């Protein structure tokens, strides 16, 4: 089988079985690396680091990276499409199904229970990033006071200008981070 096709299929499989977002793809990527030798484990850790520090969903970034490392831009496109194709198909089916049954009592009852849980997942993600930003990690051994002041200012600013697009906050805080060496 041509290698590009094989890569497409391997990432299709990853997209089909990795449930729960970008981090869930890492064990799959590890296995692919071990089985085919397309990249070493040290390459993989570079890929993870770069995927975390560039915009875009992490799982997608990793697929783009693996594809690029083997076949340049073409590989990047093919492998990324392989990763997202399964969920594209599955979500279209579910969306179609949901459209028909969203008025059903059972479906509404299920979602009534799901909504508070999703808020909880988002709260946990928020706590994680808050702790990482202010203390580095959960050992709380350091305190990044510059970040703390910046967060305070940003929160106040967002109350004062609630309509401002999130993009501006992100761009501004990147500049502040560079200027004040966060």
């Amino acid at each position, binding site marked *: 089988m041509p290698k590009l096709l094989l890569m497409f299929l391997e990432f299709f499989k990853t997209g089909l079985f990795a449930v729960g977002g970008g981090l869930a793809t890492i064990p799959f990527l590890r296995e692919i690396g071990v089985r085919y030798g397309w990249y070493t484990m040290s390459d993989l850790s570079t890929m993870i680091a770069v995927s975390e520090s560039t915009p875009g969903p992490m799982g997608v970034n990793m697929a783009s990276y693996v594809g690029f490392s083997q076949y340049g831009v073409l590989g*990047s496109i093919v492998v990324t499409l392989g990763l997202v194709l399964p969920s594209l198909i599955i979500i279209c089916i579910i969306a179609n199904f949901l459209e028909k049954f969203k008025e059903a009592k059972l479906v509404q009852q299920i979602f009534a229970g799901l909504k508070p849980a999703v808020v909880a997942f988002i709260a946990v993600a928020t706590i994680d990033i808050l702790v990482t930003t202010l203390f580095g990690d959960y050992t709380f051994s350091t305190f990044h006071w510059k970040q703390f002041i910046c967060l305070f200012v940003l929160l106040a600013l967002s109350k004062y200008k609630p309509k401002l697009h999130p993009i501006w906050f992100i761009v501004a805080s990147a500049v502040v981070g560079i200027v004040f060496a966060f």
Partner: protein
Amino acid sequence: MKKLIQLYVSWFKMGLFTFGGGYAMLPMIQKEVIEKYHWATEDEVMDYYAIGQCTPGVIAVNTSTFIGYYQAGVPGAIAATLGVVTPSIIIISIIAGLITNFSSLAIVQHALNGIRVAVCMLMINAVLKLGKGNIKNKIGFLIFAVALIFAMFTKVSTVLLVIGAGIAGVVFSRIGWLKKNA
């Protein structure tokens, strides 16, 4: 056709300015999808997140597929999905091709540390807003609290928590403790 281009461009923008996982995209989705284009209500986005959490694939991508599908069927789903992954392909190709030590550059680290503060602020605001809209009674708060504790302190898979919350929704609705607009 105009709708498809709009979907592609809007999701391209969201992909370009999302740092971190699918949850970090939420403030961007609130701005673009809910407030600017009215493609979905906050309520619906929460449903998509819940489904995206327990279906395979990257959560951010799954959400884009959902919204694209409801706006313009399968072509809409494809346009939105391609939009959200294109920035990754472009940026990763450039970085992987040119700057292999990208993530260890001091300026990148400072900028990312700055961006993380903005993401923190955006997510704190998002979670407070979502909490107000989605936790409307004591049972809702109970589900939220239990999900929070499990997600924060145990290794129980999120998929199981989503299923559990769905069952709780049905049970509490049936015994009349969880009314839709109570």
